[in-house]
């Protein structure tokens, strides 16, 4: 009797999650893929146009401009986040005083929503009322139009993105560091290895699994950034901080071109998938660190 129940039970247990998951993730993913091959303004029914949206996409100068902007943003945010979170983790993994306090401080922004963070930086960076320009003034420097100049706006959006989540990845690295046995360092110390050599030959190789997770997750996170930019710069000035996700949102919900927006979503998915594969490949190339 209980054998039979044991057979059927797992399906019942997994069912609620699976149903919601299928309706709201699996089905939309497939449906979105289909929509990318149609012309659709939501009001009428979708009309199949084959690769039409993709051709339009590839021929659009706007799309290429947005894509390259997005890549500049992502490839700025990810390495800075990666390096900074690793350095902070290495410093705060050592037996220093008040390390719990410092960890908490660097983790603090991770608790806040991107909306709250975007609004906060917009207030700090205001041209005529922002505290940062006041500090520049005190230092005898000219004020900067932080968010109304396209170069500085891009830099500040990158800065705020790193600021927002570097603490999360720092905690991940700390967890990774705690998995490295202390005897390795003791042995290296006896052999007279310098701190840099220890980092180069022990810490960095043994952190490889954590590094991979950090790079993959921070890349996905950077590609999907939406809220922070919406409140900090609204994609401006002009469209200098408008990235792929902002453009998808605009095409879908403001222009109403669901097919075109879906084609861009498919592109975003392909880029993410491709980058993840590359990241895994690069990380595996050096062989297993434990071997």
């Amino acid at each position, binding site marked *: 009797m209980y054998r039979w*129940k044991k057979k059927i039970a*797992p*399906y019942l247990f997994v069912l609620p999650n699976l149903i919601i998951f299928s309706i709201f993730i699996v089905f939309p993913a497939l449906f*979105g893929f289909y929509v990318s091959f149609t012309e659709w303004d939501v009001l009428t029914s979708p009309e199949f146009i084959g690769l039409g949206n993709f051709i339009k996409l590839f021929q659009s100068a706007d799309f290429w401009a947005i894509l390259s902007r997005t890549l500049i943003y992502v490839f700025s945010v990810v390495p800075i986040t990666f390096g900074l979170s690793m350095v902070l983790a290495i*410093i705060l993994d050592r037996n220093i005083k008040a390390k719990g306090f410092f960890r908490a401080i660097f983790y*603090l922004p991770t608790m806040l*929503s991107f909306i709250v963070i975007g609004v906060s930086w917009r207030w700090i960076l205001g041209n005529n009322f922002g505290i940062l320009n006041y500090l520049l003034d005190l230092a005898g420097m000219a004020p900067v139009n932080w968010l109304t100049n396209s170069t500085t706006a891009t830099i500040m959006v990158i800065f705020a993105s790193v600021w927002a989540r570097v603490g999360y990845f720092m905690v991940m690295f700390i967890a990774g560091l705690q998995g490295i046995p202390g005897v390795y360092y003791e042995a290296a110390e006896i052999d007279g290895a310098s701190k840099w050599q220890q980092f180069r030959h022990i810490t960095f190789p043994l952190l490889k699994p954590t590094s*991979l997770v950090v790079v993959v997750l921070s890349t996905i996170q950077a590609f*999907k950034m939406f809220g922070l930019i919406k409140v900090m710069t609204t994609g401006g000035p002009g469209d200098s901080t408008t990235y792929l996700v902002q453009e998808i949102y605009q095409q879908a919900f403001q222009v109403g071109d669901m097919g075109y927006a879906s084609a861009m*979503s498919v592109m975003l998915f392909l880029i993410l998938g491709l980058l993840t594969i590359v990241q895994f490949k690069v990380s595996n190339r050096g062989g297993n660190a434990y071997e």
Partner: protein
Amino acid sequence: MNNKIKNILWYTILLLFSLIFVLPIIWIFISSLKTSNEIFSWPPTILPNNVTFSNYITAFSKGNFITYFKNSIFVAVAATALTLLINSMAGYALAKFDFKGNKLIFFLFIATLMIPLQVIMVPIFIVLRNLGLYNSLWGIIIPPAATPTGVFLVRQYMTTIPDEVLESARIDGASEWRIFSMIILPLSKPVLTALTIFSFMWRWNDFLWPFVVLSNESKYTIQVAIANFVGQFSVDWNSLLAMNIVAMIPVLLVFLFFQRYFVKGIAMSGMKM
């Protein structure tokens, strides 16, 4: 001696650097306590001349700020309850039963970690509309509840519970649901606590999903309300800064009381690949 100087230098650098992380939040708080004249005065005052809570009072009395706050609480609490229930059930099935489809379902859950909402927001919107969940709070509670991260965390934790515990309960004639609710759940308290905290924080801070799903102002969550506030041409900074602080408070409280679970939770999710 040389070491001591080096140490002091390191601490100074660390301290200065940590200021970058904490001062902005403090500055927002200080600004929110200033009057509407003082807030734009130049040179800016560092500390408020007269501490006033009028911005908070205005923010709460104007518009529907109390409604937004209630909506946010309702969404975060309901979504967290639902997440805990269905994720722990699914995680249990995947961890402790060897059934046909186990591997496939697990793979499916994990694979979609790669599909952020940003990629499927267009079709999601259409699905929600057809189900009558557009502009409904349930439309932002139900879909994200089946989070793959949650299922993964729970599953990894529950695989460490020995099978003998379950088998002996089965021999004693306990029903499967009883085993789950009376034995498995109490044993999984650490991971469930971590998931509760994370889920609450995720849902409280959620923006894109509510932004796409909610159209009626009376349904807005705090995050959507703040974002729309900024969208207007002249930003009412006084109310906005007060709102911003209020939106921080619940998550900061959670952080204060459950700090150690964050480290644990991130460490656990860091092992996911």
